[in-house]
């Protein structure tokens, strides 16, 4: 028999689809991590503020991490950095850390970006196999990833997915100023 009790806990317990995760913002493309011989995807979410007059969107430091099984929507970890477990405690929340679009995307149209994203995402399966076997990444994949990913994600992803960042052979593309501020 259905209860009239509408306590949030009871509602959630009876219908987990009501779970609300704050994942709104600018997502990184998945970084690869290996957990117990299983490939996982880690994404960071940046808060954004659109600035129509400047034709840019301001990006702020990460607010959340989502980890899910590769090629699946099965979430295995979600962390809202605003409420603790913040891996970047020294980075300020209220100042933009970068702008969208970054320079590698200049001159690209939205359909072109969409096509490029699809191409990158279609390459994840093969990249995952290579990464699982050798902790390296195909050159094409690394090049495409580094072109489409806003570079501001790199220093934040580095402590969370160090093998993946190393495999990208980022080199000088890692913004050093922000790295120094992170843990």
């Amino acid at each position, binding site marked *: 028999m259905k209860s009239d009790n509408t306590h949030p806990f009871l509602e959630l317990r009876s219908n987990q689809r009501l779970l609300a995760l704050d994942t*709104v913002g600018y997502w990184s493309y998945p970084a690869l991590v290996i957990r117990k011989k299983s490939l996982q995807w880690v994404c960071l979410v940046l808060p954004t503020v659109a600035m129509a007059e400047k034709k840019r969107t301001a990006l702020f430091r990460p607010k959340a991490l989502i980890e899910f099984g590769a090629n699946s929507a099965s979430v295995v970890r979600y962390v809202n950095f605003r409420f603790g477990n913040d891996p970047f405690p020294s980075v300020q929340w209220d100042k933009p850390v970068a702008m969208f679009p970054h320079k590698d995307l200049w001159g690209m*149209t939205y359909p072109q970006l969409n096509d490029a994203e699809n191409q990158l995402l279609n390459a994840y399966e093969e990249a995952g196999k290579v990464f699982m076997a050798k902790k390296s990444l195909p050159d094409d994949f690394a090049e495409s990833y580094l072109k489409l990913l806003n570079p501001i994600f790199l220093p934040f992803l580095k402590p969370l997915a160090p093998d993946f960042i190393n495999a990208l052979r980022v080199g000088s593309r890692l913004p050093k100023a922000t790295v120094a501020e992170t843990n």
Partner: protein
Amino acid sequence: MNEIFDIDGDGIPDGEIVSADLDNDGIDESMILTVDTNADGSPDALYIASDTNLDGVFETESTVIDTDFDGNPDFGSLGMDIDGDGIIDEGVVVADSDGDGVPDVFSSTDGAQAIWGDVAESSPLAEDLSGFAGQEVLNDDFSSDPTLDAYNEIHGTPIEDLALWEEQDDPNSCAVATTNMMFRTVGLDIDEQVTAAIFESRSIYDPSAGTDPGMIDDVINEMAIRCDLDFHAVQIDGFTPESLQDMLDDGIRPLVCVDSSELSGDDARLLNEMGLIPDTGHAVQLTGIIHNEEGDFVVINDPGYPDGAGQVIPMETFLQASEDFGNTAVAVLPGAPSEAEESGGHWGKIALAGLSSGALGIMGSKAAKSSDGSNGKQ
């Protein structure tokens, strides 16, 4: 007072100003300026102004100019400040450029400011519509005339609804501002910060992120009950053009969730020309749908930028931009919810008619709203 002046200093009067201080307050309430530069006895220019309500500001101004000195006026204008704010609200310009005595140019202002308050005189809507709709089809009386061509069809009152528009106060408060626009349709005009505070207190609005549209109707309904306000809100998932038209015809001006980067509909625009992240949620108010020989269009009040009132968007572009968010809308309606709305949503049922069975499973339930990806912050 009567003043004669000699512009070119040849000793022959070139003009005359006649003014009158009707209430003896030291300020002239009427003025007539006559200019006859060629001394033919026929005025080359005539300017008449009058302060009809004696407030020290001219409410009507008219000008007649004979540019070719043939004794026939070639240019005439009349301006009226209807609301007395010192700004001309209605204006008419007539010009005879070829001097044949027949006006070649006739234009008039749209009068939007006089009628609907502080809105732009030449709104983007008026300009955009001029090419394919014509001002007359924006009148409800005309649009409901069955003798008109079926393609000259308009739903809603988008010109009048320019007055509902407000620019959002904060970078992420589009849904808050749009909610306020909806409130105006039911007679509630409150500051955006008040609505923002209510939304924030119910954890559906975060100034740093935006608003969760999936709970807007619930918070509005709670607000209406607590404050004894005579309106209520419903959320519509999976709307169709037809259901939107029905809403507009019933006086509803809903909030619609859209992908702002898709609203321009211009696939050739570069990322660095727009600067908007793909799939970024945004809230706008739908105020009209127009069908004419040029195609199907929607009219929206976009709180996101200063020229956002009355933007005309192709219907297809609008539907694509809203598809990313499940074609979700929120409507504020006068009065208490009907039984149909309480049992599943009147508008939801209307929208349902145009959906495939596969989409029906996510209609009208909070669970679906939370999981279908349509509830990005707006």
